[in-house]
């Protein structure tokens, strides 16, 4: 499998390029939108929440942006990976290509998109006089772990989507629930004790916490958080590969 990835690295490259090109086709600002989008979203949300609902959070803009970055990446990568097999159906029916390359390339393109939003993050950090330490480089680790987690989930969703198109609608609903179940724009302390379990069982929370610790609180995440993140990523990828590889030979018959 590793050999395959090496063999097909050119194809992965081309698929990623296609995704990005298509996303910004015929737009004047093109790839800059990757940066402007989260920035505008953050400004709007920040305006709403600093006037309408006040949370006692210092540097709310950065708090919000870190949350949005993680959530948007997760939502985009998994959604995108989910439709990858169906959308490339005509190809899968005609030419032999290892099928996991499609969800993989989709998750990687979302990763590339995420990289383009990093300048927006830096801009906000500078603008809000956030202290920047060398530990900032560690922030790449939770992002990579999250990417692996997304790949696992994406493989599972892509498999289900081949058999049941309902999953597109269901997952949309699930994502909006997840949006509120993740402390993106609120401090997790405001969740009543009886509902804290929602956050506890939300995998995204741990990646967000690790990322936020490094970028926002200038601290190193605790060992617990690291272990949970790594464990979640491995479990997700293992499960995703198992489901996908077991079912992939039947895809041709359903798409």
């Amino acid at each position, binding site marked *: 499998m590793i050999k395959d990835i090496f063999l097909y690295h050119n194809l992965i490259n081309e698929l990623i390029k*296609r995704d990005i090109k*298509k996303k910004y086709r015929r737009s004047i600002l093109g790839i800059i939108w990757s940066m402007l989008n989260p920035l505008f979203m953050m400004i709007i949300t920040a305006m709403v929440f600093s006037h309408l609902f006040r949370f006692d959070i210092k540097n709310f803009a950065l708090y919000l942006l870190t949350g949005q970055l993680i959530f948007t990446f997760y939502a985009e990568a998994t959604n995108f990976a989910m439709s990858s097999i169906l959308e490339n159906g005509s190809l899968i029916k*005609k030419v032999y290509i290892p099928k996991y390359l499609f969800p993989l390339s989709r998750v990687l393109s979302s990763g590339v998109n995420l990289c383009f939003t990093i300048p927006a993050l830096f801009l906000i950090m500078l603008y809000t006089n956030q202290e920047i330490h060398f530990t900032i480089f560690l922030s790449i680790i939770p992002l990579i772990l999250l990417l692996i987690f997304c790949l696992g989930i994406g493989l599972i969703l892509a498999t289900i989507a081949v058999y049941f198109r*309902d999953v597109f609608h269901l997952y949309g609903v699930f994502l909006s629930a997840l949006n509120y179940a993740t402390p993106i724009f609120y401090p997790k302390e405001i969740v009543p004790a009886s509902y804290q379990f929602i956050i506890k069982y939300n995998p995204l929370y741990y990646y967000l916490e690790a990322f936020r610790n490094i970028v926002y609180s200038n601290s190193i995440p605790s060992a617990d958080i690291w272990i949970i993140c790594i464990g979640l990523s491995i479990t997700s990828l293992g499960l995703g590969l198992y489901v996908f590889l077991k079912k992939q030979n039947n895809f041709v018959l359903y798409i």
Partner: protein
Amino acid sequence: MDNIISVEHVKMKFNLMEEKVDTLKEYIVKLIKGNLLYNEFTALDDISFNVKKGEILGIVGFNGAGKSTLLKILAGVLKPTEGKVIIRGSIAPLIEVGAGFDPELTARENIYLNGAILGYKRDFIKKNFSKIISFAEIERFIDVPIKNFSSGMYARLGFAIATIVNPDILIVDEVLSVGDFKFQNKCEQRINEMIDNGTTVIIVSHDIGLIERICNRVLWLEHGKKKCIGNKDIVCKMYKSYGG
């Protein structure tokens, strides 16, 4: 000993659901009602044959004989239910030219994408870019999105990309029936060139004249079974008298 393709007792079964069940609700409703019918359909039954290096094998048969299914199994797109296929060498599938095209992208971008799908390196495509363009005769439309192409241009470009290499095995499925006769001649020429270079070709066509011209052995399929295989003159003669 030098069998480049060995097909051993290949059987392909499809589950034809009465209606395609796509959504969870339908599935559950049908499951409860107990009419989730799986109609088994055997598309290929106990097919065995060998192809030697450099041979040109034609596959003939009426519609629904299982020709395309067999090609898809050879290309690795479908996994046979039973039996196995051993392939020793690289395969260029021309099952449907332009299968990997993205209509939103330009011809230039599609050449790189499609080349990558067929496993070419980027440098290789770059080197052969002008060759592809001139074979496809689309010099003026390199930066036009493919969705604006005519079907002839589409087919030409697909064929040009797929045949830029000299693969060990070339699989051709009715591609030559698209495009005008000028293009068809050009394609035939290119296939002949590849044959001269030692490529093994497997070709499916309803054009019995083409099969007679190009092939040296012919496999005749009927209702998923091997009717006969042998010298092209004998099999083609039988096939023609059978049909008419």
